[in-house]
């Protein structure tokens, strides 16, 4: 990863995080429970293919391939406030721009994280995939997840819904924004050291 050096501290991997972006995120979250019916079967299947591939990459720890699914100006966001709230003025469980997302992967992979020694194994069920077109040409994908995490004989579950915003990139779609909304986001959680 050539990005993994001090130059990041002033590079583009974070510059797009502006008040305007925050406002977009806040509005999108607030709007998210007004969606109608999913697009047709083809669009839904296309979306499912991507979110299932993504889930598999995470379950198998293929983080390099995983980050390659994201746009350069991506956001990976796990709000605490049910529904999303306002990330500009509130804490999130996770709020990653591309730089911090790469930090996170580097941190996971370096091997020093005690709650990942030994590393948990995970299995992600992602169902209820639905797809929607946005006015800006992006593709919005909703799905629900249930992640089982096993470590040292104990099992944890992480449950909630995803909203992926996809941007077309040639023939394919890239993940532009990913929001994971835990069903119990504002409650106490044990250590979160996996990517949702």
């Amino acid at each position, binding site marked *: 990863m050539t990005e993994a050096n*001090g130059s990041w501290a002033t590079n583009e991997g974070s510059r*797009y995080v502006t008040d305007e972006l925050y406002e977009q995120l806040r509005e999108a979250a607030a709007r998210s429970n007004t969606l109608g019916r999913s697009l047709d079967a083809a669009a839904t299947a296309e979306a499912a293919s991507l979110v299932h591939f993504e889930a598999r990459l995470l379950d198998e720890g293929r983080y390099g391939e995983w980050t390659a699914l994201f746009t350069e100006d991506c956001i990976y966001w796990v709000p605490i406030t049910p529904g999303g709230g306002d990330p500009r*003025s509130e*804490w999130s469980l996770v709020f990653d721009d591309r730089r911090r997302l790469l930090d996170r992967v580097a*941190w996971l992979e*370096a091997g020093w994280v005690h709650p990942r020694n030994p590393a948990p194994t995970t299995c992600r069920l992602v169902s209820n995939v639905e797809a929607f077109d946005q006015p800006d040409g992006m593709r919005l994908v909703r799905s629900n997840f249930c992640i089982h995490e096993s470590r040292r004989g104990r099992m944890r579950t992480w449950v909630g819904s995803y909203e992926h915003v996809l941007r077309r990139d040639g023939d394919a779609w890239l993940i532009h924004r990913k929001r994971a909304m835990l069903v119990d986001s504002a409650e106490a959680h*044990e250590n979160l050291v996996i990517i949702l």
Partner: protein
Amino acid sequence: MTSGAERAGRGAGRDYDQLVQRSRVHRSVYVDGDIFAEEMRKIFGAVWTYLGHESEIPEANDFKATRLGLRPVLLTRAQDGSIHALLNRCMHRGTVVCTAASGNARSFTCSYHGWTYSNTGKLTGVPFPGGTGPDFDRSELSLLALPQVESYRGFIFGVLDAKAPSLREYLGPAAALLDEWIGGGRSRRLVLRHGARRIAANANWKLYLDGAADGLHPLFTHRSFIELCSSRYRPGLFLSEFRRDPDDSEMYSQIMPNGHQYLDQRPSMTPTRWSAARPMPGMEHGVERIRATHGERADAVLEQAAFAGMNIFIFPNLSLVDNNIGVIQPVAANRTEIHWYPVTLSDQLDETLALRMRNGEDSDNFVNVDDVENWERAQEGLENVPEAEWLHTGRGIGTSEPYDESQGVATVAITNEEPMRAYQQVWKRLMQAPAPSLSGVAEGSVPA
């Protein structure tokens, strides 16, 4: 099946002088459910205990649900602005009266049989009063209320003992540290309105306290974060100073009466606290904007987004770290929650707000998880090896005077375990004292 509370009393026969010694503490202090039940009565509420912040209930009739140890509490602001801490437990048959997390209400009606209490706890209504009978005296059936509730700079504390000395006295020299943490003069206020991050650990609550002013663990516990900073960024970022021998460090710890502790991390954050901040989302954009707007004051403004660098712990449950208020919430001998509230300042500039949020998440995401894992590993070891009876707490004995509360503030090296030894003496004193009683309750009391 055994509820925690019912066991209070079983822990009473312990010989706490045996269990808490100068250079070691017995494992049962961390694993014994009976001792835990005893703590819930004799520590939480026996001394001034943090309950919430004024900015959480800013308006008349606002309320917030909280806990005093395990006890459900309603923290209310009455119509006249006064603050009350009511035990959220109906005096009829024990029902939790209010299950909302917060809100605005002049009164609370119990969902079971409709008894209604004012937000000062007074029983104002009982349905069909014609049938209560002549002995029924409504005035004796107010919600139990903490006899003393006081706040300091917005931090609200309560105590069950009507005769406890004042909060100001209890805080002692820690009050000045709170002032310093807030900064900006007496008119500045803190604002808790940015959500709360609640974490859960399968470990005893005192494991948090043991690390509150400890400068030995970061290099080992937080190695993942330190490596992240140095491998992807540059030297000198947050926590990297802990690599150095603490005897060469300008950082220091302080011990105060009543179990309060302090670690000053600011000497490691130079030239400015902001300069030690790890890059966070939106940093470049934010900094440019601030530099453009504020010119030479930009560096000072950026300090609003930087960590405070002061680690203040107010016994038994309030921790100020980074820019957050941490509230220690015991759940069981081997289960603890920490509720982190990011705070801002009444004069926080809009342009530093998002940076401050993002900066704070960094510690939550990459630092605290390693603490939690180590607490859980400690709990596992302590629970399962009865032959290894002791926690070693002797580091630094002989390098500093044994702390005595009459000293006021004592300053020690950041790896000295004297702050831990000091709060344990307070803990022992409280556990050896009788549990506090609420007026009207003590009489009629039944040994559990």
